[in-house]
């Protein structure tokens, strides 16, 4: 390539770069005004003081963050992390075999099963949570059926418990696990699995020594996609949980709309966001390390 054509190219390049920025401006402004700015407000309010009748008094204080150390809030945070962790584990345990099964089906049936996984994912979350209320409540379907069959004489207390919340979370976020896992498993060369069988691998060592290493990015992606929304979930614990199943999302909502302590609610939101950002950062690091390893070989 000679000198003149290079300079023409770079002139075109810089013109389109400028045009690129101009196209971006409206969307960028929108995001700055209605996402970045509100978050900065939350950050600022988290360092302010609560007014006597709610509202915000602009007096700098770290009290809200010190209040976070209160054992009650600590318990709710720990419980939320545990809930989100268990949800992720259960989704992985159920999602992996399901994704593996789908990935090994003939292509036409694969498409059908994937659509079947997608439909609940597109269905209103409230409706899906309500379905479990309908099934689990005292006069609900499960108790009615069990009583009709004379398997129990008094209805079981199933709803408004931590178990019900866990069930609702797994139910709600299972598709988020299956889809990335499927994408990862589908890419594995079937010959590798055949080779493992031929070399007398049992099912467990096939899983541990072939499938897990090959699908690691998919596993991590699925776990992040399930962990983040379950950690910040509000509806599931609100509708299926009892008095002791409060999670961070409910606590934040309570501080904002019921207790009207906005500074404390803001400090809670900032902490939640930091945890989420932390796990995302861990995820991206793991991804790029994976990519780096692959590049070296």
């Amino acid at each position: 390539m000679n000198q003149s054509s290079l300079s023409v190219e770079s002139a075109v390049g810089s013109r389109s770069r400028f045009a690129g920025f101009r196209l971006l401006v409206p969307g960028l402004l929108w995001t700055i005004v209605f996402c970045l700015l509100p978050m900065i407000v939350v950050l600022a309010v988290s360092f302010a003081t609560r007014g006597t009748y709610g509202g915000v008094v602009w007096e700098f204080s770290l009290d809200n963050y010190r209040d976070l150390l209160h054992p009650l809030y600590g318990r709710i945070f720990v419980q939320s992390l545990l809930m989100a962790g268990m949800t992720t584990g259960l989704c992985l345990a159920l999602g992996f075999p399901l994704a593996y099964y789908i990935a090994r089906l003939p292509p036409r049936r694969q498409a059908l099963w994937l659509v079947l996984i997608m439909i609940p994912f597109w269905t209103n979350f409230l409706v899906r949570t309500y379905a479990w209320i309908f099934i689990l409540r005292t006069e609900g379907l499960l108790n009615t059926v069990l009583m009709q069959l004379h398997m129990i004489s008094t209805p079981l207390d199933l709803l408004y418990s931590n178990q019900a919340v866990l069930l609702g979370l797994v139910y709600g976020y299972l598709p988020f696990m299956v889809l990335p896992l499927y994408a990862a498993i589908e890419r594995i060369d079937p010959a590798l699995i055949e080779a493992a069988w031929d070399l007398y691998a049992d099912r467990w060592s096939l899983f541990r020594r072939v499938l897990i290493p090959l699908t690691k990015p998919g596993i991590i992606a699925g776990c992040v996609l399930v962990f983040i929304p379950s950690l910040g979930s509000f509806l599931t614990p609100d509708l299926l949980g009892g008095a002791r199943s409060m999670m961070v999302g409910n606590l934040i909502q309570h501080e904002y709309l019921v207790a009207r302590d906005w500074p404390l609610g803001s400090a809670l939101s900032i902490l939640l966001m930091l945890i989420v950002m932390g796990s995302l950062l861990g995820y991206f690091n793991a991804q790029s390390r994976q990519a780096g390893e692959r590049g070296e070989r």
Partner: protein
Amino acid sequence: MRKQGLWLQGISGLGMAFLYLPIIVLVLFSFNASRLSAMWQGFSWHWYGVLWHDEALLAAAANSLWVAVLSTSLVVLLGVPAAMGLERLRGRGKQALDTIMLLPLVLPEVMMGVALLLFFVMIQWPLSLATVVIGHAAFNLPVVIVMVRARLQKLDPRLEEAASDLGASAWQTFYRVTWPLVRPAVLGAALLAFTISLDDFIVTFFVAGPGATTLPLKVYSMIKSGLSPEINALSSVLVLASMGLVGLSLVHQRR
């Protein structure tokens, strides 16, 4: 290929049953004549009739549709140029702009809700249906950007270059070359944003003003204020609607 093991089939079957049984019983029992119990008392369309005459519910549904239409139009108008802009951007600052634009995608929904609520209160913008539209447009913008960009990345850059070499203006290049190529992705993204907007509860819950009730807010208050088979009927309609939207997007992708 080795035949799949029985236990694998079993667990996958169970997984599917787990996903679908609750929805199926929900729909089934929307035709139950009984008012109170989960006992089957005969087939009836009664609860659908109740739905159809529930004025407050219909008003909420209309609100939801308005919000979805307005916020989707807004994110398409902002998102398609933004996706093209991000795609053309090179060099320093690109990473930062990328991060800012995709921020709403990774924020916990509750955080987004309280942040917008606080912001609207601070600038003394009264909460209404308009604030709901803004909220939805805020979290749906990155959805459109991601989907449209995925399509733009697959385009052959030589097509646009050829158009400008042949003397097309920037607008002509867009209208006659780029747009026909990205249109399926834009429609798919719009459909997804529309569905997300229709379904959103949390952000709406925080930023909806008095009287600005959307369908999910109405469903929530119905669930909270005592259960009635009317909710089953309403849920069934919503399930059917989302299946219709999935079907539409699939048929669309085929083409």
